[in-house]
């Protein structure tokens, strides 16, 4: 296959960026999207041009490091028949001769570092604000001390599969990180161990979410649509329920 790429090139956070067109030849349908970018970079390096910077690591869809917007959808969800990360999108999803637009996640709280790589440290700060259970090492009770009903456990698990890639923010017209935040809130709210900090956690996490500059949620649903791990959209309602309940609790005031 031969592919035409239009890639966002931006030297650093403060530089102006623009879309630049490249040709990639001899692309095989079995390649992953990132292997196709590798091929482009090998070619650029040999020509003496600067390779395209992009984040990636595990290349098996679990670490959450990769993520670019492909033809207008995060992780190329619009091209893929199934939910996917960028590294698990394969070139067989594209036609020979296709022109593909490749852009970084675009959101104020995710400033571009270079080309397609962005800074997602805001996510870590949301977790720091309460996305944990305070259990010091060694202080844990016996694991079977608190049974968890299977429904609760499964719902906690569904939410806990979030990989923190940021596709939800990239896809959201409001650049809201509500699905990311709601996934953690729901994960911990479903478990008995998460109850003591349940209503203080939500206040502090939402406060940091807003301080970081993410937009508000207007229930549009693009986030859940592009989520590679299919974090349920209804976790956002779980967050809202807990947030409303927290207004009537003294925790964390």
């Amino acid at each position, binding site marked *: 296959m031969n592919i035409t790429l239009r890639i966002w090139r931006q030297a650093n956070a403060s530089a102006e960026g623009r879309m630049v067109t490249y040709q990639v030849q001899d692309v095989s349908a079995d390649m992953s999207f990132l292997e196709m970018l590798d091929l482009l970079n090998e070619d650029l390096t040999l020509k003496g041009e600067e*390779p395209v910077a992009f984040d990636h*690591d*595990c290349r098996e869809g679990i670490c959450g490091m990769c993520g670019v917007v492909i033809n207008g959808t995060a992780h190329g969800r619009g091209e893929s028949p199934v939910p*996917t990360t960028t590294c698990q999108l394969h070139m067989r999803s594209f036609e020979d001769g296709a022109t593909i637009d490749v852009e970084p996640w675009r959101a104020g709280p995710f400033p571009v570092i270079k080309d397609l790589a962005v800074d997602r440290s805001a996510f870590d700060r949301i977790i720091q604000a309460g996305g944990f259970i305070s259990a010091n090492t060694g202080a844990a*009770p016996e694991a079977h001390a608190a*049974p968890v009903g299977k429904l609760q456990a499964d719902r906690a698990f569904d939410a806990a599969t979030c990989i923190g890639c940021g596709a939800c923010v990239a896809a959201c017209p409001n650049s809201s990180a509500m699905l990311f935040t709601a996934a953690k809130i729901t994960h911990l709210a479903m478990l008995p161990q998460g109850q003591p900090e349940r209503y203080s956690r939500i206040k502090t996490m939402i406060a940091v979410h807003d301080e970081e500059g993410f937009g508000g949620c207007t229930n549009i649903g693009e986030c859940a649509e592009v989520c590679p791990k299919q974090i349920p959209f209804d976790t956002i309602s779980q967050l809202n329920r807990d947030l409303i309940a927290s207004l009537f609790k003294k925790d964390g005031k």
Partner: protein
Amino acid sequence: MTTTTPAAPKTAKTQSTEYFEVGAEIKDAKAPGGAIEQKWSKRKFEAKLVNPSNRRKMTVIIVGTGLAGGAAAASLGEAGYNVQNFCYQDSPRRAHSIAAQGGINAAKNYRNDNDSTFRLFYDTVKGGDYRSRETNVYRLAEVSSNIIDQCVAQGVPFAREYGGLLDNRSFGGVQVQRTFYARGQTGQQLLIGAYQALERQVAAGTVTMHTRHEMLEIIIVGGRARGIITRDMVTGEVESHFADVVVLATGGYGNVFFLSTNAMGCNVTANWRAHRKGAYFGNPCYTQIHPTCIPVHGETQSKLTLMSESLRNDGRIWVPKRAEDCEKDPRQIAEGDRDYYLERIYPAFGNLVPRDIASRQAKNMCDEGRGVGPAVKEFDAEGNERFVRRGVYLDFAEAIGRIGKDGVAARYGNLFDMYAQITGEDPYETGMRIYPAVHYTMGGLWVDYDLSSNVPGLYVTGEANFSDHGANRLGASALMQGLADGYFVLPNTINDYLAGSSKFEKVDETHPAAVEALESVTDRIAKLLAVNGTRTVDSFHKELGNIMWEYCGMYRTEAGLIKAIGLIRKLRESFWKDVKVSGVNEDFNQTLERAGRVVDFMELGELMCVDALHRRESCGGHFRAESQTEDGEALRHDDEYAYVAAWEYTGTAQTPILHKEPLEYEFIELKQRSYK
């Protein structure tokens, strides 16, 4: 599994070839004497303590944020130390522990099936083919239960039964159900638990996180590890960081093979730099090859993906009997023309033989020309280019006939989907193609019972050390070791060293050792950028990977290893003459990052070949052609090789020094494995 007594060794020569020298024996004296159940308690009691109010004055550098590093950083932060934590990724949550699928062992005996600490200890030593240290492994089994308690308290959503209690499954061929799991994402869930505990400490101010920082050198002052040199991967700034103690939790080095199931960024640089500054490297050639990975599709492949081993419970492995059938659609190959080779060779175990045997036989079938799937370019023992089909069928037709397509989907649906997404084939129709791939490295920096390397003040945890898995790792025990080291072992041993830290020399940027370390890093970067040759970094890495895979992979011969050493030396020369690293240091320069890693992989690759060369026995995951039984099975030599090979660095392309740490088995009897 049946066991026999060890066969008499065929060869009995002690080597000191031109490739290495033998130095003084070493002995780990930290583990106290007495009954094995008492050793860890005794050691904890004997260790010197640090007053809680003094802890914040002590700085601990931890490199890596996976299970071993993240758990240690969180725990030491909770204890009150000033922790400086580094990772090369953009967030500590991305460490490659996240990709582990299967589960984590713990001797809880929740299934009432005769499990115990001693049985987990026994299975782990046996799984490691009697090449691990008894004392460490016993401790690992001992703290395994605490790990599960800790993780549950953190909110790790382990699989549960309808009664709300934790579910278990059996894993890795053991006969008890002791593996805790969270669907196929156990590593992810455990890592997120550790990550959350870590972020809690970041918020509390006890841990300072340095993301997108790569450790490029260690600072040794007066014989002690006192700091590291890092490069800020966004700005290129080379910085020095100082501490009272340095912990490396930097994972494994499987990417020396270029293609592996490791993340693209996994590298040996931190370990190798410590090795160059005096830390011994233990058993570098011990590599785990996993039999059920998705085969290579072509030359541009960048990494391999593991499919859970559980597939072998219901899948049947076969290749065509005739090489001319290999191009056919598998559905068109008649039952009588298929060779279910594992069932044929090992009728008792069939498709469930251990990982190393399943891997080796797949290689044998493909070497015979009976592999399936696309033919990929590789190099033969003489270095000639050839195209070989590297894949065998893992067929579910029988299982679909027995339990129906829905039954198969219920058990393995997510794996089938993953396979379909990666290959574009429907495994319900055509079955899967699989091939072995490098998965885990048991070798690593040598450590004692306290997880301290031979360099005072340098501790090594998790996959980065060599300690617990011997020559082959038991399934579901990598996660266990990482968390055991990070949560429970290191926080109870590091204090013994830190208690004396008030007498340590003061160090800062102006100390000659720090200046020297920093300059060596900036010099190396300048040197890499100055070559400006004609070949890309990846092309060298791929070539190194081909050499390692061909000669130092599943099947090793003396001649092959000697050849590999020569090839690697040539490759290294050519690298420094011809590599092209674009861009500048003062930038987000991913080519420069990779170039530095490949430099260290090339040096490590040579040491791995030397280690493999000296170990003339087939052991664990490694088959040495010169050491096999009459019917071609692996043969171990306990009289000659029951030791840890700890290598001392003497200089690039200089002969390294081998220090042997004898392995004494007081509590477990050594037995030769047999699966026939």
